[in-house]
């Protein structure tokens, strides 16, 4: 057996007894980032599929939510920074190997793309607002141009949305120092989860029945894919290094087992999966609001749980405080 104890203290509350640097702010940012990605991708998909009739909300109004949700996310991210005045430093360099640097720049590109998306359906989606733009010749020209190029704008929005969604996962998986995050599956998992939360959002707020049904169908497929990706993620860790196996223990009977399996997998994935299956069969209509709310909740819980467990997983095995079992362990 081996016991590693500190003789002198490191006394850094962010590190001992275990790494604890990111809290709800970062989880919320990853959640809202994924949601934004989903919003952009769905607004664009509906435009490309020409389903304006069937899904009027997603076709003309949804895009407006992207910059709003993303700005909220960037706000919580900003709250997390410890050296806030230096936030501009994200934009004085580009670090090719740092996903966070990629993310910072992707966020900047997302805004203009999503503004174009909004403008391309401003007249039909927000007739109260469009006259303010139409009043000016230049505004009119811009709106005309965006409407004429709606397809091209949608085709641009999809890859950028997907990049944003995947990046929120790669951000974590790039940390080889955190065994629980160190799985390539996180990129696709976060993307699919982001798409699923966006589909749930539309199912929740859209008024038209055909639109609710369409997005419930989308969501159903996405939840199924997410379940498969969660399984792959676990298989990936379970066949990994000693550090990954130890990290996995925290959801296999360890302290996070309950939140992970009950709150995320059960409440956030499986219950909505069943409810949505019933819904598209025309059953359980009265509780139609429940499934999307649970999906949104599950999306947040996934990020929070991953942030929490990932930070605690590590390579070193120090005992940071006196352990009464010490002598017993030395005897075994």
């Amino acid at each position, binding site marked *: 057996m*081996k016991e590693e104890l500190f003789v002198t203290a490191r*006394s850094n509350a962010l*590190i001992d007894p275990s790494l604890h640097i990111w809290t709800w702010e970062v989880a919320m940012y990853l959640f809202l980032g994924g949601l934004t990605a989903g919003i952009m991708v769905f607004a664009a998909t509906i435009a490309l599929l020409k389903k304006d009739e069937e899904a009027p909300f997603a076709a003309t109004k949804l895009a407006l939510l992207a910059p709003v949700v993303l700005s909220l996310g960037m706000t919580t991210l900003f709250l997390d920074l410890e050296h806030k005045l230096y936030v501009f430093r994200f934009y004085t360099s580009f*670090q090719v190997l740092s996903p966070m640097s990629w993310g910072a720049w992707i966020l900047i590109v997302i805004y203009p793309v999503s503004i174009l998306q909004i403008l391309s359906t401003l007249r039909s989606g927000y007739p109260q607002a469009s006259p303010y733009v139409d009043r000016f010749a230049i505004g009119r020209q811009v709106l005309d141009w965006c409407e004429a190029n709606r397809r091209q704008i949608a085709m641009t929005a999809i890859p950028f949305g997907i990049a944003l969604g995947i990046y929120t996962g790669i951000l974590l998986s790039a940390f080889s120092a955190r065994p629980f995050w160190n799985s390539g599956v996180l990129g696709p998992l976060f993307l699919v989860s982001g798409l699923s939360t966006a589909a749930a959002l539309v199912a929740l707020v859209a008024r038209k029945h055909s639109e609710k049904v369409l997005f419930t169908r989308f969501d159903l497929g996405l939840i199924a894919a997410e379940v498969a990706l969660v399984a792959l993620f676990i298989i990936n860790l379970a066949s990994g290094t000693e550090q990954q196996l130890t990290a996995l223990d925290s959801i296999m009977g360890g302290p996070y087992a309950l939140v992970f399996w009950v709150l995320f997998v059960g409440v956030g994935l499986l219950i909505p999966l069943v409810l949505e299956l019933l819904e598209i069969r025309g059953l359980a209509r009265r509780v139609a609001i429940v499934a999307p709310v649970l999906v949104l909740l599950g999306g947040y819980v996934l990020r929070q749980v991953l942030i929490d467990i990932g930070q605690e997983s590590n390579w070193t095995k120090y005992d940071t405080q006196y352990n009464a079992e010490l002598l017993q362990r030395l005897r075994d």
Partner: protein
Amino acid sequence: MTRFAMVIDTKTCIGCGDCVVACKTENRVPDGLNRDWIVEATQGKYPQLTTEFRSERCNHCSNATCVTLCPTGASHHWAGTNIVLVDPDMCTGCKACIAACPYDARLVMHPDGYIDKCTFCHHRVGEGLDPACVSSCPTRCMHFGSLDEPSSEVSRLLKTREYKVLSPETGNEPNVYYLI
């Protein structure tokens, strides 16, 4: 890349903590924080136990994941060496580098909001001096120098003594060596 290494003899280290105090004094490390620390590792089965003292700090990795993942370039290798430094004027306090260090030599959050860590006393190294911890050790168990010079004390020790680094499987190529 000039490779500076620290070679620490666990056979002569007595875990007194002088290196920790020397670092705090030399670098005016803020109250309550430490850039280095002593670990006492006991192994074996009672009563056949062996104890090893290790003075630990940032490993100034040649392949430093904290540098790779820093989004701003604030974490960097100093002047063509393996010494990893943080530029406070570039640091956003995003804490990515803390999460990125597999040694949990994890950089320390300075009260002003930027990341602070062991610098191998590069200000002394630049003048040809040893880091404060090395020069203060009462048992002379710590050694510092360049691995590129075959005649340096550190190169010589690594050639003649058995040694280890912490978790070489991280792939970070750490540069703090422990003689065992």
